[in-house]
């Protein structure tokens, strides 16, 4: 398969109006557009603001990478798009537009009808994500038959086809195996086959390779990329691993404490990043061409509590540059602004300051 062009600022249709106006409720032109999404969980300890005002958009055939440390709200976001939060313990607001249809305010039945057919998800741990008592084939057949009125025989043939397509050898035999009879990598392939069984136009992969060893990781990512080109679907790739994003994505959204810190094309994010948190992520990214000792510069401190999010910029307790702005970082929340065309960041530092810090302090050390 031909390699896709991953550069280009407007690859996934980053446009100025995302997040700027919120309450419009006018269908967007983009295939997927998320506007000011908020997902909060009222708990005994307080309100958990897992996602707090997130906006992005994605076109068919493109890939958006969402990165951020553990607990930044990546999984909550993706489950939110699929409408999988129980409305009894989660409050969801904002808008999610998928191909002209708004999902946050749609009826549960309407959203269910889209799940699995129009949008599908690959989960992190395929062993626990598949039912232990049903065969792999049965689980794929089931996914196919909810949305397609076909006989069991036809569906089974389709399941075998799908298993073959994701690279499972002897699919006509393995179709009757149970998940525990598959190896980790094979299970993830089966999971992908299940997710893709109805040709979804939006595929969300939530850390699809974290549970796998390195060689299998690469195979699975290749598989997702190939299948994406075949089906021309939009993909959201959620990961801790910036390397994965660099390789697969068109755009990247850096999440911190439930909000967007930086949103840019992959090219911009890797070569001209404009947020201190992104610098931190890049600094802590393992690189094969460096010695171990020099390449890892972990971000100091730990991710904040989502109940008592730090005042001002949520990143300020961990940010090395927070002082440069005369205390603004501690009191005033930086808005996500489009600093350069198609490149947004939420930081009080001036563009000039950030460019200087990046060129003089950060880039040389990477």
């Amino acid at each position, binding site marked *: 398969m031909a390699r896709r062009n991953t550069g280009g600022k407007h690859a996934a249709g980053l446009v100025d109006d995302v997040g700027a106006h919120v309450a419009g409720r006018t269908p967007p032109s983009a295939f997927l557009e998320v506007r000011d999404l908020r997902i909060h969980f009222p708990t005994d300890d307080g309100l958990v603001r897992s996602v707090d005002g997130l906006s992005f958009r994605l076109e068919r055939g493109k890939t958006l990478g969402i990165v951020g440390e553990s607990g930044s709200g990546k999984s909550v976001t993706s489950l939110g798009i699929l409408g*999988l939060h129980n409305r009894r313990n989660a409050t969801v607001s904002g808008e999610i537009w998928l191909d002209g249809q708004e999902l946050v305010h749609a009826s549960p039945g309407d959203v269910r009808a889209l799940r*699995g057919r129009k949008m599908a998800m690959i989960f992190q741990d395929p062993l626990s994500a598949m039912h232990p008592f049903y065969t792999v084939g049965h689980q794929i057949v089931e996914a196919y038959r*909810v949305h397609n009125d076909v006989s069991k025989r036809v569906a089974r043939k389709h399941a075998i086809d799908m298993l073959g397509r994701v690279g499972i050898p002897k699919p006509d035999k393995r179709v009757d195996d149970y998940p525990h009879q598959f190896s980790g990598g094979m299970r993830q392939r089966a999971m992908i086959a299940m997710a893709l069984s109805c040709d979804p136009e939006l595929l969300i992969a939530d850390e699809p390779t974290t549970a796998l060893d390195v060689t299998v990781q690469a195979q699975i990512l290749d598989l997702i990329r190939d299948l994406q080109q075949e089906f021309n679907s939009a993909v959201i790739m959620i990961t801790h691993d910036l390397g994965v994003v660099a390789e697969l994505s068109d755009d990247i959204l850096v999440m911190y404490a439930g909000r967007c810190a930086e949103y840019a094309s992959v090219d911009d994010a890797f070569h001209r990043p404009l947020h201190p948190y992104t610098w931190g992520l890049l600094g802590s990214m393992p690189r094969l061409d460096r010695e171990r000792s020099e390449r890892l510069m972990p971000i100091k401190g730990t991710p904040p509590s989502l109940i008592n999010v730090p005042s001002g910029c949520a990143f300020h307790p961990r940010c090395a540059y927070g002082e440069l702005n005369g205390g603004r970082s501690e009191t005033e929340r930086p808005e996500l602004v489009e600093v350069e065309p198609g490149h947004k960041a939420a930081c009080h530092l001036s563009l000039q300051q950030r460019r200087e810090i990046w060129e003089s302090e950060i880039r040389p050390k990477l």
Partner: protein
Amino acid sequence: MGLLLIISAVTYAIFFLVPRAAGVSSDDIAGRFAGKQPDAVTLAAIKDRFGFDDPVPVQYGKFIKGIVVGDTYDTGTDKIDCPAPCMGYSFRTNQSVTEQIVDRAPITFMIALGAAVLWVIAGVSIGVLSALRRGTIIDRAAMAVALAGVSLPVFFTGLLSLAFVVHKWQLLPSVNYSDIGDNPFNLILPWICLAFLYAALYARLTRAGMLETMNEDFIRTARAKGLPERTVVFKHGLRATLTPIMTVFGLDVGLLLGGAIITEKTFSIPGLGQLALDGVYQSDLPVVLGATLTAALFIVLANLVVDILYGVVDPRVRHS
């Protein structure tokens, strides 16, 4: 193989330990058999006929042999043939223990199976409903009743229901059930009382299991596929919840098949439980032995059935 070993161990323990623990001598045992004030000659004859003075292992060997191939007792004047499985004769009634057990087992079966059907249906549906409506009035009410259910013994609910339903309000006739040919619906009160206890237990088990299962990743996957909530709950959720409950169910039924002692006593139903209980009261050793052995057999069989079924429903067990 292991099962045979367990059963042998149980019988041996009963055989060896029970008389010793009770401090009974062979004279006592023979005396029980002979009835009132036997003379020394009769006692000696009885001891000789049954081998009460033989060493315990020899007696045990004879007992096992009786079960496996049958036995013949020589009374001097007469020969009594006791076909396999022979568990001896009651000291009190002189009836064959095997016959007594065969007579009464169906009665206990009727009690246990009828109650089991009721409690599984009621317990599981209430448990599922409670889990799905977690925290609502329905859930709280159901769990309050279930708490009462597990804390009230059958002799309490049984006597209460007899007093009110049968005697005071006369909603049900006062009937008994003493033969497998009787109308099985005469057992309705015992069924309900026994099932109430177990249903309460199963409702709690099911609710806890269901709440846990519904948080599993595979349930999220089922929803992500776009399956209707009905399918998610009843096909994916219930299947995983019921598997461990099935184990408990098998063992509970096995235990009851050996005799629902309290229920039988409360409602005066002559099942295996009554047989064993009467045997104990009357120091009728062969009957106690036979009843206990039968109960042990049912428990062991239930274990076996559960193991086999587990392999059928849980493929991970089947393949390991």
